């Protein structure tokens, strides 16, 4: 058996090789991660840990490895964002209103990973109902970014909403994790935690069994330690699902094999509208480095224009919140867990929802209700949907000329919760990720450098619908050139 810290340093591709060559067993790998999960507990990355299930999964994986029927994810100890319904394992969406909800079914995506032999370590923390950009709205407490400097007055946030997933992968407490991305909830925390996060094309991964936030935007995807790992894990998660009517029938792609394609001759667009007023110098510098990396790898750089960029964020907040207010109407105190009685039926609903939902969720439901209400529907919601058309048209036009787009992932490095003091300032975190979400495009965040304070920064690659292959290829080129050392400061089990 290898030393614990050696096992924990392996990514999916490395662990797959080790398992295949019988250098260690899935059980040994899982046991190492259970120790790491103990060490990482102060980060509060898990809402629910499932060590017994993990060991049973690991034994089943070993049997498959023995029998020669292993799939790519067999034996990989992963965390599932606690938004994916997992049969027999409490699913909370980080909300009080779901109580101890015990799903009688398995989400399609978590079920696919399970069927491929992945080991479930537990359910990762997130912003309540995936609404947030700092993982501070969880009813189960905030998550700490493992890159928080020693002796910092206040912990840094991991970003959100998939903050637990990104923090656990960065801290070496899970080899990979699932996330969901509505406006940046995979890419932004991945960037702030120095790991890889991929939002596939809308429809590539099934939303069935994923607790809904904004259904026209929500999309599951992987959070991993390398681009190759993202390709491997996405291969397991993706695919048509008749249970999700928006699931794409696009042909399956071997994403890992596609990586070999390289980027020679690829045309990379640099959208000038992303160079916002007041963009920090270090973000701009990182972006320039990314451009140079792409060039050095043989890609051609093209200046492109996406005029509607600035309108994407306000349009997103209308569309997403309108959909959220509608989706969250189902939490009525009758079908799920938490109930607060009241004098009449209206009071019964209002009490249940007033007590069960947290502050940010209530705020978003109210805004969503308002923009859908009589007299405001046309001026807010319809107008936002029309702007969404214009945003999608911008991208379509740009993609006539280029294969992928290269942008920063976030406008800053990881921040402390107290540094962002009002809702709109918090929403600004998603300024670079939201436009691709509005158009349903695939986006990947790759760690590419450090801020002046030594915190990880990410670059985002956006692609054409269902062209994850080009996105991953460019991501691989950036990863190779950046040589980013993703060994986190607080690597569990490897104390300095």
């Amino acid at each position, binding site marked *: 058996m290898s030393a614990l810290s050696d096992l924990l340093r392996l990514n999916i591709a490395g662990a797959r090789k080790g398992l295949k060559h019988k250098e260690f067993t899935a059980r040994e790998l899982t046991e190492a991660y259970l120790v790491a999960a103990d060490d990482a507990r102060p980060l509060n990355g898990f809402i629910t840990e499932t060590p017994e299930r993990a060991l049973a999964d690991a034994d089943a994986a070993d049997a498959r490895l023995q029998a020669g029927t292993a799939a790519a994810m067999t034996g990989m100890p992963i965390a599932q964002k606690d938004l994916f319904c997992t049969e027999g394992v409490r699913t909370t969406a980080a909300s009080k209103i779901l109580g101890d*909800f*015990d799903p*009688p*079914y398995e989400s399609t995506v978590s079920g696919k990973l399970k069927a491929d032999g992945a080991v479930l370590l537990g359910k990762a923390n997130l912003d309540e109902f995936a609404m947030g950009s700092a993982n501070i709205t969880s009813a189960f407490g905030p998550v700490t970014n493992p890159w928080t400097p020693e002796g910092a007055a206040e912990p840094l946030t991991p970003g959100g909403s998939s903050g637990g997933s990104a923090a656990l992968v960065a801290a070496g407490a899970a080899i990979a994790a699932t996330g969901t991305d509505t406006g940046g909830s995979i890419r932004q925390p991945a960037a702030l935690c120095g790991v890889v996060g991929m939002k596939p094309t*809308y*429809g590539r991964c099934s939303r069935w069994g994923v607790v809904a936030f904004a*259904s*026209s935007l929500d999309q599951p995807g992987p959070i991993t330690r390398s681009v190759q790992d993202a390709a491997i894990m996405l291969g397991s998660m993706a695919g048509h699902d*008749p249970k999700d*009517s*928006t699931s794409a029938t696009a042909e399956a792609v071997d994403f890992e094999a596609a990586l070999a394609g390289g980027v020679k001759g690829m045309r990379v667009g640099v959208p000038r509208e992303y160079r916002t007023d007041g963009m920090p110098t270090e973000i701009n510098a990182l972006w320039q480095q990314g451009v140079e990396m792409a060039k050095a790898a043989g890609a051609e750089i093209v200046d492109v224009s996406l005029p*509607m960029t*600035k*309108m994407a964020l*306000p*349009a997103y*907040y*209308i569309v997403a919140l309108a959909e959220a207010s509608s989706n969250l*109407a189902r939490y*009525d*105190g*009758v*079908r*799920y*867990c*938490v*109930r607060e*009685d009241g004098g009449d039926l*209206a009071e*019964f609903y*209002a*009490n249940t*929802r*007033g*007590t069960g*939902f947290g502050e940010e969720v*209530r*705020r978003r*439901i*109210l*805004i*969503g*209700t*308002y923009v859908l*209400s009589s007299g405001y529907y046309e*001026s*807010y919601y319809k*107008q*936002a*949907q*029309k*702007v*969404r*058309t*214009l945003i*999608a048209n911008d991208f379509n036009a740009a993609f006539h000329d280029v294969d992928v787009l290269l942008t920063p992932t976030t406008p800053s490095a990881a921040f402390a919760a107290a540094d962002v003091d*009002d809702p*709109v300032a918090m929403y600004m975190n998603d300024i670079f990720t939201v436009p691709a979400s509005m158009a*349903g495009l695939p986006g990947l965040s790759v760690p590419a450098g450090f801020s002046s304070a030594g915190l990880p920064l990410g670059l985002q690659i956006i692609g054409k*619908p269902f062209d994850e292959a080009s996105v991953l290829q460019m991501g691989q080129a950036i990863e190779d050139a950046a040589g980013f050392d993703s060994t986190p400061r607080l690597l569990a089990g490897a104390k300095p």
Partner: protein
Amino acid sequence: MSLDRDTVANIARLARVNIADGELDSLAGELSQILNWVEQLNSVDTSGVVPLVGVGTAMAPLRQDLVNDGGQAEAVVSNAPDAVGPYFGVPKVIE
């Protein structure tokens, strides 16, 4: 658009979310800030633009008209706070 506390109370009633009296003023401020910020959308000329309802959803898929699931009453009510056999229990509505 600036919202006053009565408007917020009315939205909260429509949304069936109980908001304490003491929270109405601060919420009115926060919601107004968000609405003022999204109002920049009105500066975009969208005449003749078709609203985008969703991406890749132009055609709703059809499935065969067959029963493919069912008989799950127990599972369906398994998380209800007040299940009576295969039924959801609710407070008395008709007086």
